[in-house]
Structures are given as C-alpha cells and as structure tokens.
C-alpha cells in the first residue's frame, strides 16, 4: 500500500480538475490514533487530505445512496461489491459514480489491538501492511499487521474490486485459502439447544443502538422495520425476543446482499459477533441459489427472482 498515497491523490485531482466528478469520497486521518474517517473533497486543492492504509475501514458505498452529484469513490474489494449490490437494486446510478479501486490486503480490527494492550491507552500509532506501531505514555509496541486484521478480511475472497473504473496500483495480492464458513460450520455442527444458547448469550448484550444498521450500505430503507409504528411489527424493548428478532430479520434482509465487509461488527460497541449470523445468510443463498452478492451489476437481486427448480425439500 505504501507509495500509493500519491497515486490516490493524483487520481482524485485529475477527476476533479477534468470535471468528471463533482465530489470525491475517500479517507482522511481520524482524530484519534488508528482511526480514519470518510473524507469528502469538492476542491482539487484539498486532495492532500486523502490517505490509504489498513485503518481505512469504512465502507464508503454507504455515502453513494440517494446522491445526485457525480461522485468518485475509493473502494476496496468489499466496498465495490456493496456498490454493485446497490447499483443492481437501483439505489445508485452507475453513470453517476466513478469507482476507484484500491488494492486491499485487509483492514485492522482495533478491538483486537486493544485486547493485547491490557487497557493501556494508545496515544499515537503508525500502520502499514507489515506492522502496526503503537505508542502510549510509557510504552511502544510493534505488532504484526496480519495478526490484527478483521475476521472478514482473514477469509476475504475478493480483494480486487469486482467492478471498477480506475484501478490504483496493482491488482492485488494473494487471497487467503482459509475456510470462510468455518465459524458457521462449527455452529451448524452443534445441537439446536447449543446454538440457541450461543445466540442468546451473544445477542443479549445488544443495546439496540442500531449502529450495525446505520453503517451498512445495504440498510438504505427510508424507514427500517424496527422503526415502523404502523404497524409496529416488533418491539423496541430490550426484551430478549425483540433483540433477537431484530438481528434475525436483519440477517434475513441481508441474505444474498451482504458482502461481509465487516462494517457492522467493527461498529458494534458491545463487540457482538454479527458475522456468524450474516455469513449464514450468505451461505444459504450460495448453497441454495448459487448466488454471490456484488459480482455483476446486471444480475437481479437473488430474493426477487426464482427458478422453477429451486429446492423445496423443506416443504411437507
């Protein structure tokens, strides 16, 4: 990733100067260590704010929904797939967006870094593909980046954007051979009682802040089912059934649409493992309908179509 700093700035500058886009969305340095924040650039003089490193974790496809301006957006493999899903669903106009592909080898999971620091506060950090250097009041530690990547990145199959207009750098990097459904398979091998106990334990800490929903590019409904009051489908309480139903229905809504970008898990303040739930939806759709989300802008959303020969072994 090193040395791409100039390429991304040049690409953004060119797009803005030539009038191809009105706005470039990328990443800039956040206000706290190990944080980046989305950056909106309208003036080519501001392109120096742009950065690209393994802290650039936000899924920028989120900001393309419902926009009229012509937008150039930096996308990792997963962000590009999110954008493709939104284009296929008619939420983003393909002609109004320039996808600038980034070569990604994974983004860091700050929760994993915090877990090895025993509560010591990071005051400054530098990150590259090889190592993360964290500095605090009276310590400095070097951590290998590959051990602190997000779970989604560790089994990511699409590091190269599936669809892009401009590609920065070389199309990357080897893709891992780990089993992307390992956690799901492990749960499936348990009994129904054990699975229920697992999800009760995992989801009962949910505080219904909805940050998982708000950060997700696929959650673009003008009114979410949990906010609806007429009819009020499900309660807004922290009764276990209400919380579990929120997560079940969200994973149903995302089945065949989620691209496992990991944004929801990263944003969760309670550290809930949302991935095993969403990954199951992905697996169901892959096994039943041979569909993978975000591969082709022309492909119809999987749950809005059918085949005569769809399996119906569950019908009695």
């Amino acid at each position, binding site marked *: 990733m090193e040395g791409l700093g100039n390429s991304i700035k040049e690409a953004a500058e060119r797009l803005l100067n030539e009038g191809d886009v009105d706005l470039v969305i990328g990443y800039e340095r956040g206000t706290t260590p190990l944080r980046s924040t989305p950056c909106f650039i309208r003036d080519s003089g501001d392109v120096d704010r742009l950065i690209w490193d393994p802290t650039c974790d936000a899924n920028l496809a989120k900001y393309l929904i419902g926009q009229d301006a012509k937008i150039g957006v930096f996308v990792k493999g997963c962000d590009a797939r999110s954008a493709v899903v939104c284009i296929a669903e008619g939420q983003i106009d393909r002609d109004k967006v320039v996808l600038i592909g980034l070569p990604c080898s994974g983004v860091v999971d700050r929760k994993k870094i915090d877990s090895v620091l025993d509560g010591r506060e990071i005051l400054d950090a530098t990150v590259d593909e090889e190592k993360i250097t964290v500095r605090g009041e009276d310590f400095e530690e070097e951590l290998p980046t590959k051990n602190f990547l997000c779970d989604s990145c560790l089994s990511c199959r699409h590091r190269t954007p599936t669809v892009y207009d401009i590609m920065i750098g070389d199309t990357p990097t080897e893709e891992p051979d780990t089993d992307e459904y390992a956690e799901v398979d492990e749960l499936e091998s348990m009994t*129904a009682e054990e699975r229920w106990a697992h999800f009760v334990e995992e989801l009962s800490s949910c505080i219904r802040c909805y940050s998982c929903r708000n950060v997700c590019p696929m959650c673009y409904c003008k009114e979410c089912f949990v906010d609806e009051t007429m009819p009020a489908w499900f309660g807004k309480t922290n009764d276990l059934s209400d919380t579990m139903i929120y997560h079940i229905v969200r994973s149903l809504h995302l089945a065949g649409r989620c691209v496992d970008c990991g944004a929801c898990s990263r944003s969760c303040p309670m550290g809930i493992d949302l991935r095993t739930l969403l990954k199951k939806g992905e697996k169901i759709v892959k096994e039943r309908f041979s569909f993978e989300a975000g591969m082709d802008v022309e492909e119809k959303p999987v*749950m809005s179509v059918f085949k005569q020969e769809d399996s119906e072994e569950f019908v009695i």
Partner: protein
Amino acid sequence: MEQGSVSKKPAVVEEWEPRIIAFLCNWCSYAGADLAGISRIQYPPNIRVVRVPCSSRVSPYFIIKSLQRGWDGVLVSGCHPGECHYISGNLIARRRFAVLKDMLEYIGVEPDRVNFSWISAAEGERFSKLVREVVEKVKALGPAHRLVKGE
C-alpha cells in the same frame, strides 16, 4: 381482588393442546380447507386459519411475529408450484421461506415449529392429513418458549 386462599385451579388438569396459526392462500389451500369442511373430513381443532391472497403475501414478519406472540406452531400453505393464481407468487415465496426456515433453524428455533406446504383446492383429504401431521409434530415439541416475548 378476591379474598381468601381458595385456589381457582380447575379440578382436572387439562392436557396441553398446541395452538397453531395457519396462513392459507385464498385460491388453493383455503379452498382445500373448505373442501375438507364441506366433505365432513375430521381434523384436529388446533389450527386457527388466516386467509391470505397468496402465499407470497406471507411475510417472514408474520411468521416471526406469530412465534413471538407465543403460537406453538406456524403453518403456511399455498398453491402447488406452477399453479399459483398469480403465476409465480408461490415461487417467490418459496425462496423466502427456504431462507427463513434455514435461518430459524440456525438460531436454534425447533425446525418443526414452522411448516410449509402446498395444498390445492381439490385436496381436502390431504389438508386434514397435513393438519394432523403438523399438530403431532408440534405436540411432540411441547409449548413454545424460544423467541416468545416475556419468556
């Protein structure tokens, strides 16, 4: 409030009977249930029928909400594939139900609580058989607890 310590429990404890909500499509399954009725075919009285225009009218919300409200079982039935009054409603519904059923099972809800079937308007006999089968299965599971609000 009533005074005294007299228990209001009935003298004979009735055997638990499951309550099952059945979403039946207007064109096939509801008519199939109707045929069972006019033909005087017996089936257990545990189901409460909700008539819907098409099986694709049945949102996963209906099913999950039913479970949350404490229904012990859910039955959804529509026209056989290829015979939908609206051409392909049941085929769209089939995909949706497949994902819902897999997902509920994954969470740990007993798979037999939620049942899907195709019943045509001519299948009164089969409808009564289906209801008996579903009631048997839900009876074997006992009262619902998972996803029930307040439990």
